[in-house]
């Protein structure tokens, strides 16, 4: 019997007692779906609350009984956020974050992809030392760099400027480690063929390897972007001027006020969340896969 006929027989077999079968299946699975439903509510409700609150008036947000739906619906709190002259220039912070995350992501992808290629495919003196040093720093907790990097960035004159949130993170070893793992998983044949055609390392890298590496490069770019966009401790301490903050540092300054304006803060949080959620939805499979793989190596 072919696979096709095996599949064909299935519906008719089910047709004998479709109802009972479905009901008992459902009853059996009910607790499972119930748990799934409860978990989904727990994970989604806070985000819905954030979104809806951002369209409330300041008074409405703290009026009992609380209401999920705005009474009335208003985009009032988004207005001060959109002005660059206000005390809370969220649109300015948004642009700063956009520049910083994009620049750092590009720099990380460019430098890590080349360095990792040398470490994965070339023989040279000091390779093991370099790789050992780079991977070794993955185990140094990030807070160790906080104080000395503050002083180094100060030496460059970068305190309170976007340079401080773009440049230092490019040295992070993760990108090199990530790209090297990818190159090692590539079959050597294509590169060997290119060598026979007389290509040099640079040509092989740019014309053969990088096109093959597009998914890995995109994943690294997304991970680097998310990391920079969400970075918190560092920007809070190296950026001072309200006009120079990134979104997370700016949002933190919003809640310093004693009388916290929740719709305003939630509107800022929505603005900070939307780009990363969109990126996540688009690159969801790649992001989750790279996280999943990290554990299997450990």
């Amino acid at each position, binding site marked *: 019997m072919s696979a096709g006929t095996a599949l064909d027989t299935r519906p008719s077999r089910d047709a004998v007692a479709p109802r009972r079968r479905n009901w008992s299946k459902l009853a059996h699975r009910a607790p*499972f779906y119930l748990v*799934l439903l409860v*978990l*989904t509510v727990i*994970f*989604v409700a*806070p*985000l819905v*609350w*954030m979104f809806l609150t951002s369209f409330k008036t300041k008074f409405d947000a703290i009026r009992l009984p609380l209401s999920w739906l705005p009474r009335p619906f208003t985009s009032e709190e988004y207005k001060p956020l959109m002005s660059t002259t206000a005390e809370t220039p969220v649109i300015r912070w948004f642009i700063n974050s956009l520049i910083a995350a994009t620049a750092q992501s590009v720099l990380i992808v460019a*430098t890590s992809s*080349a*360095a990792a*290629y*040398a470490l994965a495919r*070339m023989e040279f003196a000091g390779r093991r030392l*370099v790789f050992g*040093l780079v991977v070794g*720093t993955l185990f*140094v*907790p990030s*807070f*160790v*760099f*906080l*104080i*000395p990097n503050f002083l180094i960035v*100060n030496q460059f004159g970068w305190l309170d400027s976007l340079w401080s949130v773009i440049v230092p*993170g*490019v*040295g992070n*070893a993760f990108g*090199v480690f990530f790209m090297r793992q990818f190159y090692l998983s590539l079959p050597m044949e294509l590169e060997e063929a290119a*060598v026979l055609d*007389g290509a040099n*390392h640079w040509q092989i890298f740019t014309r053969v390897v990088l096109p093959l590496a597009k998914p890995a490069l995109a994943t690294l770019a997304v991970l680097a972007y998310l990391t920079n966009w*969400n*970075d918190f*401790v560092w920007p809070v*301490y190296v950026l001072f001027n309200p006009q120079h903050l990134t979104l*997370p*540092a700016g*949002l933190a300054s*919003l*809640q310093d006020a004693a009388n916290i304006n929740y719709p305003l803060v*939630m509107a*800022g*949080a929505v603005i900070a*969340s939307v780009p990363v*959620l969109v*990126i*996540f939805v688009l690159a969801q*499979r790649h992001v*989750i896969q790279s*996280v*999943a*793989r990290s*554990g*299997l190596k*450990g």
Partner: protein
Amino acid sequence: MTVSERIVVRRGVAVARRAGPVRRNARATPYLFMAPYLVFFGIFILLPALYGIWISLHDYDYLLPHKPWTGLHNYVQLFTPGSRDSGDFWNSMIATGIFTAASVPFLVVCPLGVALLLNRVFPGRTFFRAVFFAPYVLGVAVVGLLFRYILDPNVGLVNYYLDKLGISHDIPWTTALPWTWISLVGMTVWWTLGFNAIIYLAGLQDIPRDLYEAAELDGAGKWRTFMSVTVPGLRPVMLFVVTVTVLASANMFGQSYLVTQGGPGHSTRTAIMYIAETGLRQFRQGIAAAMSYILAIVLLIISVMNFRFFRQKERY
């Protein structure tokens, strides 16, 4: 030019190229590939890791011209009861310790439950996986502010529903112990559960199917199968999850900074908060650098113990 001539020319080029392995394997090539990255790595990773030690051996204030060498004085100070920083520093270490001890068990067990839930075939599986992971892509700034609102004792959603259920109406989630710790741990679980769950899920799918079939043939029940197939199969992944979670918990900063501002008193001021305040607000960078190395060494010891614990279990 005729076709044959072209072929000859092309061959000539190819031969010329092939004859030039010097260019291909030029000694400098690998270093040139690595140079751009190594500049950033050297200046912002390697240098600070060592420079920090140098700073910690000085009475260092970057705004003052004179930064006297003090040797191990900063370290001695931190271990001398009653000195200016030792009390506050160790209290912040204890705060970090409480947070780590309270959050790691939840972040090791709950995600495993979610992973087991997702480790079966049902419609929408990918969707739910993404839903549980989604909070993790939000920054701590967003999560912190969101939970500060939701946990607000007067107008927060949590107390509002607890009141409706007739349980209680004014739990001081963000202002009094032990509620502050429950809040900080709870929001952290909400925020990062998905990350660990995804790692577990990959680990579960890595366990060979025939082990389950063998267990079924042996007539093992669900619990027996879980304990004798799933748990041992997950051991390496679990070691990874525990290590990463301990490190992440020890790095806790944003949640306290945003939700409790380190309060009540300084009870939830974590080690990172104290290090940052001392070094980057009061500009006493020497002793702040010393604190970060002490914290790093404590973490190293915990990681080694963690590895040994899992190793030891592997032998049985």
